[in-house]
């Protein structure tokens, strides 16, 4: 501990070089932190979908609506607490870039199935009273500054009205929020009433979309999936039942092998920072050879000198790395506020562990050769350098 000032002084011996190296490290860890957070999202690490929710879709594709008549059979499967049906509406709010998902649902079923989201009682009553009523998540309402009572125009890309017009209008009657802190992952969604939608649309009547099941016990997921799928096997309405988490992951994976791309970039970033900080450390030791020899002369052992250089390298990597990681947390916060409809990406424990391991590994990798050089220094030779 008493050597901290010594290491600190050594680190700042060449201010400009240290600052540039630290900034380089900061940039690298800013990128590493952000990319790893994204990676952890794609590999399912930080998807917050532990609720016992399953999705039943048409085997052929989730874009093919399942008919409403399957409902009683699915509801009767043991272990299923409640069933909601959900048809993707595909509406555009003013501009395509304002994308957010909308679904046609039955309010009563919605309330029984999505227990993680809370809609105030009087707003729920209002939704049941109003056929054109719709509800939005808190996050979505904040994004567009909506208040209860607003009229929301949506142009459906999929469903024209009977007269061929695509412009639908809904009345916002409620805004739902977390039931417990952070529980409602559907806050970016918008829900309209199925009965109004089904009557109004030009074609497709009787199609339910997908079914969302709430299980009594999440450990029954596999058996429920098997039973549901067995009901409709070899019929034109074959189903595929999976947990909501698997459903979402499969969706993200369709974008491509993102994991591979992110890993590739991470390696490139890591390698370039290895060079920059390695160069700095080796220069730092090379310039200080006479000083290090003096340290040895006044009684520092070989081990201590090795430790001093490694400590300097560790200090440098940790300062730069932490600065970068903090920036990446900040950046992720900003991104999640942007109106892109990105799923919330956060730096979870995995990301921090990865970052800590990287800082440690990096400081060892760039510090070890200079440190060994310092350790093996012969005092006589070093002092006669000049």
């Amino acid at each position, binding site marked *: 501990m008493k050597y901290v000032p010594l290491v600190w002084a050594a680190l700042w011996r060449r201010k400009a070089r240290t600052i540039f190296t630290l900034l380089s490290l900061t940039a690298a860890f800013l990128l590493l932190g952000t990319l790893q957070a994204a990676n952890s999202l794609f590999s399912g690490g930080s998807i917050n979908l532990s609720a016992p929710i399953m999705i039943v879709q048409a085997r052929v594709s989730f874009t093919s609506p399942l008919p409403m008549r399957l409902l009683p059979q699915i509801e009767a499967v043991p272990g299923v607490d409640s069933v909601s049906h959900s048809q993707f509406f595909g509406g555009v709010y003013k501009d395509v870039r304002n994308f957010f998902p909308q679904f046609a649902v039955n309010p009563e079923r919605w309330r029984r199935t999505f227990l993680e989201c809370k809609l105030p009682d009087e707003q729920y009553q209002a939704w049941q009273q109003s056929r054109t009523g719709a509800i939005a998540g808190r996050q979505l309402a904040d994004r567009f500054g909506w208040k209860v009572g607003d009229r929301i125009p949506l142009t459906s890309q999929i469903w024209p009205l009977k007269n061929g017009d695509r412009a639908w209008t809904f009345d916002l009657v409620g805004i739902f929020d977390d039931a417990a802190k952070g529980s409602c992952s559907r806050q970016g969604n918008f829900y309209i009433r199925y009965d109004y939608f089904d009557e109004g649309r030009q074609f497709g009547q009787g199609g339910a979309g997908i079914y969302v099941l709430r299980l009594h016990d999440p450990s029954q997921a596999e058996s429920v999936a098997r039973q549901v799928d067995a009901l409709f096997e070899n019929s034109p309405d074959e189903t595929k039942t999976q947990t909501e988490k698997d459903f979402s992951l499969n969706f993200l994976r369709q974008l491509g092998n993102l994991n591979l791309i992110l890993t590739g970039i991470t390696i490139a970033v890591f390698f370039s920072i290895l060079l*920059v900080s390695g160069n700095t450390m080796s220069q730092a030791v090379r310039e200080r050879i006479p000083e290090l020899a003096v340290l040895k002369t006044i009684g520092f052992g070989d081990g201590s000198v090795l430790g001093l250089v490694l400590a300097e390298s560790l200090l440098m990597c940790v300062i730069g790395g932490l600065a970068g990681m903090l920036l990446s947390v900040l950046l992720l916060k900003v991104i999640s506020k942007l109106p892109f409809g990105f799923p919330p990406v956060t730096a979870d424990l995995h990301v921090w562990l990865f970052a800590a391991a990287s800082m440690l590994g990096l400081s060892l990798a760039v510090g070890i050769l200079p440190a060994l050089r310092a350790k093996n220094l012969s005092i006589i030779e070093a002092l006669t350098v000049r």
Partner: protein
Amino acid sequence: MKQILAVTWMNLRSIPSRTMTSLVVVIGIALVVGVLVAMLSMGKGFEHTLKGTGSESRALMLSAGVTAELSSYIDPGMTSLLRELPGIRRDAAGRPLASAELLVITEIKRGGGDVNVALRGVEPAGLAMRPEIHLAEGRMFKPGLREVIAGRAAARQFSGIGVGSRLQFRGSEWEVVGLFDSDGDAHESELWTDADTARSAFGRPGASAILAELDPAQPPAEALKALKVTVAADPRFQVDVLGERDYYSSQSQGVTDNINFITVFITVIMAFGAVFGALNTMYSAVAARQIEIATLRAIGFSGLPVMISVLAESVALALVGALAGAAGAYLGFNGLTTSTLGQNFTQVAFSFAVTPDLVRRGLSWALGIGLIGGFFPALKAIRQPVAEALRGA
């Protein structure tokens, strides 16, 4: 001028004496440019595939107001009317060259998961008017039978697609009876079957879109305009008419915009890191040349040649790095095939395309990094008082 050349040349020749620190710049920039070019080549490849789809002489009719075939639906009553419109070319037997096609999404296995693949029901005219489609293996599907032909890219990208393999859609089995080429365009990622077979199997009597060959009596642009006017003037139709090529070109926008955005984000941060690395290297290069520079100044060289020699060094290192990075991206990725979700929510296979334009973009980023990384050290080099610099050594 002569001074500038002499000092710069002398300096460039002395780079080998600073190999280690110079490598930091070269490799650092190579990595930035490599990542940049590789990422952008993905967007470029996707764009090439979509822009290469379709023909100037064909028009696509979609329901009004939609942006993609997937969300379009035209009633069976309307399809027969649209098909007969004037301005659509007719074949020798007098039948219109128009194909009312149904596009549905199916899920096909790939690795551990399922991916969305487009199944397109085409009418005989749809095959007749697309000369780019060639059957490469097997035979054509027969109307009325649950048979499909698969695009080459679909067969490569997804598991279990080959002549003779069987796929399960909506409770019944479909046989893959052939594979087709389509000049590497977006259709090569699709499965094709007979339109009526698809309509009855998927319970959708209408069409997603109608593809029509324009009457060759007029140049394509005018024929297209005329068809647009005809359709717009008839109140029975709620249909948009688009040039087929324009439609597919517009479909690449979303994906390439996303890729470009992410790439620039990553490159900016990596470039920052590289600039600081370059600054370190160039400051130490100037320090190593301290005596040389001071001597030059003492014997009468002005600041400019010295400054330019420093800048030339960092720019030269940056450009070498950029070329190495671009070459790496080319060797590692060019031609590599992959696929992503297109606008229709289905997988579109494409190949990474490292184009000269992308290499130029990589070079200009490197130039920027080199200039910034060299400028401040160059300034320091000429600001140093000569006497002090000579004594410092």
